């Protein structure tokens, strides 16, 4: 894949989805590995770098809308960072074949969960701030 326009469009689409908090991270890795033929670990690295400005832009909007729970954000973010760094070190060292298979299993399970979630109306019902 060496067409910058297609690359920007792929980033844009994945950015919309991840800005909404729906696993857009996995989406870009899938497009890169499965459709653009990029190696798994490189796709994951691109996804990490790509996500940073995407997240920064989305976070600005969410802060403006007062949608961030700071206690949960710091409580989860600080231990999450330490563990993510260790897991990242492992990922750059293991056999790429296994990394790809593990990733495929992760998205298969996620897909099944999304599809067969019991109550799809739950999002709206528990939001509590939607006028009906």
């Amino acid at each position, binding site marked *: 894949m060496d067409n910058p326009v297609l690359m920007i469009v792929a980033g844009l689409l994945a950015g919309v989805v991840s800005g909404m908090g729906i696993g857009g991270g996995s989406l870009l890795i899938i497009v890169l590995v499965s459709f653009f033929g990029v190696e798994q670990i490189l796709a*994951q690295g691109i996804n990490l770098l790509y996500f940073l400005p995407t997240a920064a832009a989305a976070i600005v909007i969410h802060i403006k809308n007062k949608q961030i729970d700071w206690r949960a954000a710091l409580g989860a973010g600080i231990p999450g960072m330490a563990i993510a760094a260790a897991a990242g070190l492992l990922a750059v060292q293991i056999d790429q074949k296994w990394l790809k298979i593990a990733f495929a299993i992760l998205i298969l399970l996620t897909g099944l969960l999304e599809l067969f979630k019991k109550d799809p109306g739950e999002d709206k019902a528990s939001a509590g701030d939607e006028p009906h």
Partner: protein
Amino acid sequence: MKEKKKVLKSAASGSASGVINGFFGGGGGLILVPLLKRFVKLPVKKAHATCVIIAGMMSVVTAIVYLAKGAVSFGDAWPYMIGGAAGGLLGGVLLDKIPQKWLRRIFGLFLIYSAVRMLFHG
């Protein structure tokens, strides 16, 4: 005391998500959003928004690891970063306006299709 419990539950959720986000270079939100909703009991929109900032924190440190180990460079990633920044802004605005139900169903189908493709086409 209640707030302390919330921090502990958040820490457990963040740790679980950190394993995924660090190992796969993303996707921490896949388990973090449901954990923030059901376990930490955040309202839906707050769970989604808070997930983005937690995933951002984890991705910064993982990106540093990948860059230091030479697994990726900015030269590989810049077009996606430009598209992603614009898309993230748009997604943040749309979060308030688009029903999630069908979006999630379509996303689920795409994930299953892609997983099967990856497992059987190498």
